[in-house]
């Protein structure tokens, strides 16, 4: 067995390299629907409104970094959806349509204004209602948004420093 000491030394060196690499990564430009693989317009609009509320507490405060982080997260969510089975993609598209179309947006989701104009407080209240709903459909809608947004956010190395996770160790022997 390779000694523990060697491994730990390699791990520390790797961490430094990883942090440096993260800083050197250039932020990606804002993605647009044209480059999307799985998102439809409904999904992108809803996620654009919902993700920043779910991610309150971890998004950067500065406006520019915040926008870049949200754009990157939407790109990651799009990629995550593209990797789901077709049936699951179709179900998500149905959910997004249900939340986006004006009659159901108002009655089902309780969001009065179109999503791009919905105040953050209204989005917050929508999420709280769905999370605590006695209706399984609403709870599973909340869970789907939760899973997509948090898997995408915490799958990106950008999020790790705030968690104390150093990223994977370097293993060059």
């Amino acid at each position, binding site marked *: 067995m390779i000694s523990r000491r060697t491994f730990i030394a390699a791990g520390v060196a790797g961490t430094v390299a990883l942090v440096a690499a993260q800083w050197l990564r250039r932020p990606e430009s804002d993605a647009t629907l044209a480059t999307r693989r799985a998102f439809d317009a409904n999904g992108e609009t809803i996620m654009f409104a919902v993700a920043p509320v*779910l991610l309150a507490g971890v998004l950067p405060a500065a406006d520019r970094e915040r926008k870049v982080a949200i754009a990157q997260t939407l790109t990651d969510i799009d990629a995550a959806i593209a990797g789901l089975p*077709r049936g699951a993609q179709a179900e998500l598209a149905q959910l997004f349509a249900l939340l986006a179309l004006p009659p159901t947006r108002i009655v089902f989701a309780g969001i009065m204004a179109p999503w791009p104009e919905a105040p953050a407080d209204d989005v917050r209240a929508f999420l709280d209602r769905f999370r*605590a709903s006695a209706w399984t459909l609403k709870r599973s809608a909340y869970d789907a948004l939760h899973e997509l947004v948090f898997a995408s956010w915490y799958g990106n190395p950008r999020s790790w420093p705030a968690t104390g996770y150093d990223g994977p160790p370097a293993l060059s022997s």
Partner: protein
Amino acid sequence: MTGTAATSFPDPYHEPDALQWSVIDASRLERDIVFDTDVAIIGSGAGGGVAAEILAAAGLKVVLLEEGPLKTSSDFRMLESDAYPQLYQESAARKTADRAINILQGRCVGGGTTVNWTSSFRTPPATLAFWASEFGLRGFGESDLAPWFARMEARLSMAPWPVPPNANNAVLARGAERIGIPAAVIRRNVKSCWNIGYCGMGCPTNAKQSMLVTSILSALKSGATLVTRARAERFAIAGERVTQLNAVAMDTLGVAPTARKITIRARTFIAAAGAIGTPGLLLRTRTPDPHHLLGKRTFLHPSVVSAALMPERIEGFAGAPQTIYSDHFLDSLPVQGPIGYKLEAAPIHPVLAAITLPGDGLEHSRWMADLSRMQVVIALLRDGFHPQGDGGSVRLRDDGTPVLDYPLTPYVWDGVRRALLTMAEIQFAAGAIKVMPIHAAGVAYGRFSDARAGIDAFDLKPRITPIFSAHVMGGAPIGPDPRRAVVGMDGRHHQIINLYVLDGSLFPTSIGANPQLSIYSVVARLASELARALAP
């Protein structure tokens, strides 16, 4: 560079010998392809891998079909964002029909063995005794299987973990000791393990003795053909025989079929696609099922989670993920009594933690900020031994893909409540500052007495208390009586004479322990018998 391509580690799939092997990535096929072979095996996990090795070594021509990709140590970058979409069914987001249970299942060469956490247990004697008394299984006693367990333990280098557990597992050991229940060291299937903790994302050093680097390599060296990114659609049946398997090539994402077809004609067919995939394939085929058994009694070890905030750094993302367990709440309960549970730790990487923690916004971010001080215990419930806990059933969606209905009965919820209490008690005994039993309420407690009152009052319901599973079992059970089993004691289908089931679908109940060694050993025995019967 993000993550590290472990290029300095020898990757057997990149060595010169590998050029001699027959490996076909179906996503790249430019025309339809037909195989004529002795044995077709569908699925390359714990069952298919072992069967392929044994049958190929016996001189039989084997074609091994896998729905997922061939990913090997040089691809394993220890990133959740790579691993879940590439190596798991449905990007690790597979769920039961009502979405109440999240199922982690492998979909790659090596199947679950490529991504499991290496815990290796023999089938518990109480489980084998129940199979004999309740289902009439013959020749499946502890002493009958002992040589097969020993053989697979040796083959896959299973041994008790020799170095101290990581802090996450040490909390479980300490808490168990303080509340006076026994805990022990887990046997792991590793060789020269680096103790880094990324087993669930594919082992980058090839320390894990998964099917990928053991049996499948051996089968390829014996001349077997491996076809990856190919989804088995259905068997063609004439009379009481399967004549061929019809499969489709999948795109590189594993989402949509390409236009290419794969046909395998064989003397013998082995379904080893796991306990959702195998019943799914047989249901699509409409194999005879006169007693309505197929896909029924499918078990999950429904599992619940308790997160603790510890005063010290835990770094549950580092170190071998599962090295300590306690069977106290299995061993102290009769198998047919209230549902028992096995206690283990679980690795704590950012994505898995973030999707498991309830709530969002500031509440969620505070727990995530303490990720390095988080400790996680899980309880795996032993299902299948009681009329109120007789598992779920696999059925087909309109598009032909399989889905599991798994009703969570009051009997199961009773076990969930007891398990959440036990885990909180262990975590507080080990010094936890706060304990959060994972539940939609997202409440954390500072004292065990408060946790007890809170858990006693929990509303336990689907999608309020998240349930997880990493072990799918049953659905095509083995047994001598065709009225109670889909396949006979030799693994052969009771109605189709050249179709065998050799995977976790065989089990008449859940195992009551992480199932890999049970699958390896039972399949090693059945495949050895089959090899003798088919020997050229």
